[in-house]
C-alpha cells in the first residue's frame, strides 16, 4: 500500500543511532525501515497498555483528542463505544420521583437485609448491621 510519506528530522543521542545502524546492517534493512518498525511496535504496544488506554479515554471524554485518533489507536468498535458513552453524559435520565422519605428496610424488604462477609477476613469486628 503506497501511503503518502512525511519527512521527519530529529536529533538523537549518537550512541543510540550507532546501535540502530549496527542493527539495521545486521538485519539488512535501512535505518529508516528500522525506525519505522520500531515506531510501529511501540504504537501497537501502547494500544494494549492499560495506562495509555486510560489516558486516551480521559483525553477523548475531555474532548482533547478526536474520534479519528481514538479509532486509529483502539479500533472502530471501541471508538464507537466511547463516542456513544460520551454523548450519553450530556443527556439527563428522567427525573426521579420520590414523594416522601425512602421507606425503612422493614417496610421495603421482606425481612432483614442479609450482610455478606468474606471468610478470609479475620477482622470481623464490626457490629452486625442491617443498614
Amino acid at each position, binding site marked *: 500500500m503506497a501511503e503518502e510519506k512525511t519527512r521527519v528530522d530529529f536529533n538523537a543521542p549518537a550512541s543510540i543511532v550507532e546501535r540502530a545502524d549496527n542493527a539495521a546492517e545486521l538485519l539488512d534493512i535501512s535505518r529508516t525501515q528500522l525506525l519505522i518498525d520500531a515506531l510501529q511496535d511501540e504504537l501497537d504496544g501502547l494500544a494494549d497498555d492499560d495506562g495509555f488506554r486510560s489516558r486516551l479515554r480521559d483525553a477523548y471524554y475531555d474532548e482533547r483528542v478526536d474520534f479519528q485518533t481514538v479509532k486509529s489507536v483502539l479500533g472502530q468498535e471501541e471508538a*464507537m463505544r466511547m463516542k456513544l458513552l460520551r454523548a450519553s453524559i450530556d*443527556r439527563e435520565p428522567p427525573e426521579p420521583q420520590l414523594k416522601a422519605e425512602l421507606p425503612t428496610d422493614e417496610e*421495603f424488604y421482606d*425481612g432483614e437485609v442479609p450482610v455478606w462477609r468474606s471468610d478470609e477476613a479475620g477482622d470481623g469486628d464490626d457490629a452486625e448491621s442491617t443498614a
Partner: protein
Amino acid sequence: MDDKPISVVDTNVLLNLATPVVDGRPAAPTGADPLKALLSSYHVHVPTSVIGELSAATGSDDLLSAAADLVLKASHHLTTHDVEAKIDEPLDYGLDQGESDGIWLANTLDAPLFITDEFNSTNYLFVSLALDDRNTLFTTPHVLCKLASHEVLPSEYVDAALSYYVDSKGWDEQYLNQLRHKYLRD
C-alpha cells in the same frame, strides 16, 4: 397512579445495585441503599426471565448470591412482564436472552429509561442499536449520580460507590470521573 417514570433494567443492574448493600467488607460504601433508591423513585419493569436469573444466582455462600437474595426480597417492587410469550421475532444483535428481552420490553413500553451496565464492552453498541430510541439508554452510575443530584442518595455515598465499582467491577474509570465532574462536584 403516580408520575414516576418507567424504567426497564436488566438482571445485572439489579445485582450491581444490591451488591454494596449486602457487602459487609470495609471497602464497601455504607449509609445508603441504591437498590431501594432506584425502586422507590422509578417504576421499574423487568422481563419475567430476570426473576429466574436472580433465583439461579442464589444458593451459594458468596457476594453475588447475597445480592440476588436481597433483590428477590424487593421483587414485589418490580413489575414483571412475560416477554417470551409475546416476542414474535427475537432481537438478533448477539446479546444474551435476558438483555434482548429487556430491550424488547423497553421498546414496547416506550420506556424513557433503559439502564444497562454493559458499557465496558462493545455490547454497549448493540444495546444502543437495538433500542428504538437510544436517548433512553443510561448506565447504573449515571442514574446513581442523578439520584444524588436529587438528594435521593447522598453525594458522598455515590462518590464512594463509584470507586467501589471501579475497584470491584473494573468499570471505565474515566467515564465515571466525567459523571462525577458533572453531578457530584460543581
